[in-house]
């Protein structure tokens, strides 16, 4: 167990908890949104940043989690059971999405995940008995271990607890054989095979683990919105998550959360600035533009994202040579 990571995760969660108390209902809403996005980003970073498998279907996987949790909870199941069920369903669907990765690599596989995203979106719309079609599944307020989750303020607690568990679990995962084999897989499948790593096995487990975490995030998102609808889990959401992990720093431990906070809070910030300046009509569409620009800039100048930028700001004497201190994509660095 990496004690430093555990301490950081708990401290960040406590800080977020304090913020949710300090800024009232809106604060709780934003903190919950950041925590959920953080969990989702951790799941995608596990797949792309550590495992090297590019996927555009993470948005739909969150949807699988939301629908699963919504149905379990609406049927009277405890919220915790609903969240775990969402994780299991997310893991299974993710492993199915991963099967083409056994044959396809890189961009070719990424295209296959685009298809998976489209198929899942379609299923959300037509599987009426489970998903309630285009109008979406209304999720009644759930109870977790008997405690009713009536507001964002109460939902913040399970979100932050799950965030800490997932965050620490990912840290631990990268220190066991399975996580190490993900890193080799990311660099080269040929090398991984030569080193005696069962590539197919490792890949499917990467999808399974990532899908489980995405399912948890989807369940929490469903409870927060009290609705699971096809429009909420589109390719746009997948793109948002990819933006988060690139802006935060691919393959880093803190990156997903930093990126999630950035991507969730940036539109709010733009909105506020717009309102203050009386320009909200003009500034709102800037969100997409800002994301696109940021991703391009990060890929060119700092593939390791905000995490690397922040660690560079640290005084040298304090800088800890973290395992992620070296660029993951040496080729994309300027010479």
């Amino acid at each position, binding site marked *: 167990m990496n004690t430093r990571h555990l301490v950081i995760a708990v401290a960040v969660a406590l800080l977020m908890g304090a913020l949710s108390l300090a800024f009232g209902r809106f604060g709780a809403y934003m903190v919950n949104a950041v925590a959920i996005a953080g969990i989702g980003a951790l799941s995608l970073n596990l797949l792309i940043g550590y495992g090297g498998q590019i996927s555009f279907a993470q948005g739909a996987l969150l949807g699988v989690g939301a629908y699963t949790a919504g149905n379990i909870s609406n049927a009277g199941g405890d919220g915790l059971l609903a969240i775990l069920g969402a994780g299991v369903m997310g893991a299974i669907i993710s492993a199915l999405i991963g099967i083409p990765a056994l044959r396809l690599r890189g961009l070719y596989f990424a295209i296959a995940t685009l298809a998976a995203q489209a198929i899942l979106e379609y299923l959300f719309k037509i599987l009426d008995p489970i998903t309630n079609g285009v109008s979406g599944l209304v999720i009644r307020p759930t109870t977790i271990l008997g405690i009713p989750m009536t507001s964002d303020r109460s939902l913040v607690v399970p979100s932050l607890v799950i965030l800490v568990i997932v965050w620490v679990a990912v840290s631990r995962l990268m220190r066991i054989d399975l996580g*190490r*084999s993900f890193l080799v897989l990311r*660099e080269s499948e040929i*090398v991984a*095979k030569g*080193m*005696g790593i069962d590539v197919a096995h490792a890949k499917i487990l990467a999808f399974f683990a990532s899908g489980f975490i995405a399912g948890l995030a989807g369940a929490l998102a469903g409870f927060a919105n009290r609705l699971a609808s096809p429009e909420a889990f589109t390719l746009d959401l997948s793109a948002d998550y990819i933006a988060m992990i690139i802006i935060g720093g691919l393959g880093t431990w803190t990156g997903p959360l930093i990126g999630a906070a950035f991507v969730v809070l940036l539109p709010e910030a733009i909105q506020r600035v717009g309102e203050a300046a009386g320009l909200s009509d003009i500034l709102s569409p800037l969100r997409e533009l800002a994301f696109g620009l940021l991703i391009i800039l990060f890929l060119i100048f700092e593939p390791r994202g905000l995490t690397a930028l922040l660690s560079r700001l640290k005084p040298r004497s304090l800088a800890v040579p973290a395992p992620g201190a*070296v660029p993951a994509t*040496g080729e994309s660095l300027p010479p």
Partner: protein
Amino acid sequence: MSLVAREVTIRFGGVIAVERMALEVSPGEIVGLIGPNGAGKTTFINCVSGTYRPHTGTVRWLGDELLGLSPSTLLRKGVARTFQNVASLHDLTVLDIAKLGASARKDRQSGGHLLDFFRSDSALERELLEQILEPLELADVAHKPIQTLSYGRRKAVDLARALAAYPQLLLLDEPVAGLTSHEGMAMAGVVRNVRDRLGCAVIMVEHKMDVVMSTCDRIVVMAAGSKIFEGLPAEVQADPEVRRVYLGEP
């Protein structure tokens, strides 16, 4: 004989890379595989280690057929290999690589990975440091990412990975190529020590004749995909045909 290879043939298009190659190795024996470039030495190693699938032939290890098995299955059976060119693996430290090698010793199911979450590996870490990294002079860089190391040390890391699996059959593909003579001799010493400790069979492809002569118990000479000579190091040095093919004398 515990490794018995017979009639191993592999073609790439019209090129016959290895033709009816035969080789036998006993436990505790270090066999040197030498020959000019293109003789098929590495290709033969690739066949034994599961990277290539030969068209014909058998490779039996303690009676079990090895051909057709994947590298990961072979590693669990105790067949480990090193590579001529070492891969640069970002983010992984020397100790990480050694642990990946050692993971072949654990035969486990998917669920076993879950147990790993709760198991401390500090005992394994100590063992790898003392048994593997210390003799290879890697203990001081155990926690450094491997791309910060020199070429010679990276080759040592690759050997450490193979040794961490505690192999019964060790296939070394040019373990000392590109190393300084000091590094090369140290590496050869480690190979002999490992052989003495584990009693494993070793096949070593190598061009550096001083290392081959001083390390190997027996030498097999390949040319144009086949074995042309086999004998003790002294016999190989004295054989006129070997000298003509390999050492370039008339």
